[in-house]
């Protein structure tokens, strides 16, 4: 599996799409570094609001939340999420939050 | 390449027969031994293959449904394209076997005007197939005049109908022409359509050339060479009654014809020609779509590892309890509460 250089001398394992292999290895530096791969140069408060919610939800439920839930809980409309994360909530925001990619009928 | 190889193979068979009888005088080989071997291989091979198929079970009921299912009483179900009764299956199979129902559906897909995918009906393959198979059947039955004594009425009847046009002496049968035409079409489309040519194997060309060889020698024998048909029938009846005897004076071409037919018979069970039987045994066609009504049994239905509810609850009990979901077994640390139901 590919190694991803976080930048501070550490590396984490990522899958083919650049998602974190072990969500436990996530930290803020990893998030910032992954952000750069998804067109998010700097993570500002609004980004963190999304990322933190995703993280919290994931830690509680073990999966990514519905996008609608994400919107409702953060108060951001879907287009705002796309503004923040150009590659979208699933590929962008979830990746930065260290969540695995959802699979199945989605 | 595969086509040429097949043609060469058939020509070699012809050559073999010619040499065998003309130069070698091996009449008993080509007139008696080879036919017996061919018949044994045909019948034995065919039974062997079919039993081989039958030995494997049909574990699941997987018909391809081509119409509305039987469900609510006020919704008209498609009795034959999506049969739910044995009778429906019988009709579906009859339509398939007698009229090539599925092939009749054939469409031709094209991308027209650059961006429109269009589907036109195309019946050529169906027509070619129907023409080929039915003329083959008629020819087969017609030949019973050489294999039966007395000749059953339906053979005479069929000959009369087939020779209805009364062209030539002896009359030229319509089916001979249709058979030739259909074979030619099936061969030409195989050569002409790039995709079909791409998938065609020796196994596909060889039977076509073989049948063309059989048809050609047959027509030559009937209309041009005129060998001693009485002698031929004496030979065949001898074979049938297991008292084989070679009749003198039969033209060598007959032995070529016979040898090609024997090749076909011997080749049959070990080739794609087994679709003759396979069409009856295809589980996507010969089963009723009633698996929600009647339980279908799989003889090898072996147990598999299942994540049981107990294991599942063990995995998630705390979370379930925390979320207020009912559980069958209360978590250990807390004293048991009354089960919520």
């Amino acid at each position: 599996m590919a190694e991803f250089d976080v930048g501070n001398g550490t590396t984490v394992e990522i899958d083919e799409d650049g998602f974190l292999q072990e969500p436990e290895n996530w930290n803020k530096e990893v998030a910032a570094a992954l952000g750069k791969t998804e067109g998010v140069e700097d993570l500002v408060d609004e980004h963190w609001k999304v990322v933190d919610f995703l993280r919290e939800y994931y830690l509680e439920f073990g999966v990514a939340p519905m996008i609608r839930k994400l919107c409702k809980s953060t108060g951001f409309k879907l287009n705002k999420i796309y503004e923040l994360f150009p590659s979208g909530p699933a590929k962008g925001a979830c990746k930065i939050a260290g969540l695995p990619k959802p699979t199945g009928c989605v | 390449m595969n086509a040429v190889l097949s043609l060469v193979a058939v020509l070699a068979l012809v050559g073999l027969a010619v040499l065998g009888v003309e130069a070698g005088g091996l009449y008993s080989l080509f007139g008696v031994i080879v036919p017996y071997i061919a018949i044994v291989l045909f019948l034995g091979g065919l039974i062997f293959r079919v039993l081989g198929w039958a030995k494997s079970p049909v574990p699941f009921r997987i018909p391809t449904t081509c119409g509305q299912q039987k469900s609510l009483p006020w919704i008209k179900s498609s009795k034959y394209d999506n049969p739910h009764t044995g009778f429906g299956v019988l009709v579906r199979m009859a339509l398939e076997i007698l009229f090539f129902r599925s092939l009749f559906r054939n469409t031709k897909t094209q991308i027209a005007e650059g961006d429109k995918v269009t589907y036109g009906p195309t019946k050529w393959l169906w027509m070619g197939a129907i023409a080929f198979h039915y003329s083959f059947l008629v020819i087969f039955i017609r030949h019973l005049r050489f294999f039966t004594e007395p000749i059953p009425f339906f053979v005479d009847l069929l000959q009369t109908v087939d020779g209805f046009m009364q062209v030539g002496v002896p009359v030229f049968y319509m089916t001979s022409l249709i058979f030739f035409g259909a074979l030619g079409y099936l061969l030409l489309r195989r050569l002409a359509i790039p995709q079909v040519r791409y998938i065609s194997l020796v196994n596909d060309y060889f039977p076509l050339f073989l049948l063309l060889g059989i048809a050609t020698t047959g027509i030559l024998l009937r209309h041009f060479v005129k060998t001693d048909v009485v002698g031929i029938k004496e030979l065949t009846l001898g074979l049938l009654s297991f008292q084989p005897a070679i009749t003198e004076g039969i033209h060598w071409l007959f032995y070529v014809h016979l040898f090609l037919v024997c090749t076909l018979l011997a080749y049959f069970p070990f080739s794609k020609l087994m679709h003759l039987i396979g069409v009856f045994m295809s589980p996507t066609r010969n089963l009723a779509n009633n698996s929600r009504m009647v339980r279908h049994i799989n003889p090898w239905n072996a147990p598999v590892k299942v994540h049981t509810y107990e294991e599942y609850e063990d995995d998630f009990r705390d979370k379930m309890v925390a979320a207020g979901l009912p559980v069958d077994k209360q978590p250990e640390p807390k004293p048991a509460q009354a089960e919520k139901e």
Partner: protein
Amino acid sequence: MHDAGKVIIGLAIFVLLITFPIWFTLASGKAGHRPELELPKNETQCVESKEYMKAWHMDLLNDWRDAAVRDGKRMYVAEDGKKYVMSLSLTCLKCHTNKAKFCDECHNYVGVVPYCWDCHVDPKGD
């Protein structure tokens, strides 16, 4: 499911059908039957050679029919120079007096139904 019963019944029907000639002929008891031709008693030479007649008589008769009926020609000159009247009734049947014991023997044996008798009357028949 194996449906063994259905497969075996199907197979039996197939074998029964395909071996029809064997059991049908054996059952009829005529497997050894051979055409027995009643040859003319007072004539040894047909219009053409025996071999030629055996293979080509239908073509010869057809030519005769066309010549006689369509062109009005009645005279046939054989290979050996002999002349014959082109007539089924007058020439052929003169020697081969019994259709049933000559023509029909072979025709029936190999299932040939010539249309001669659509027009001609078999003098000995009905």
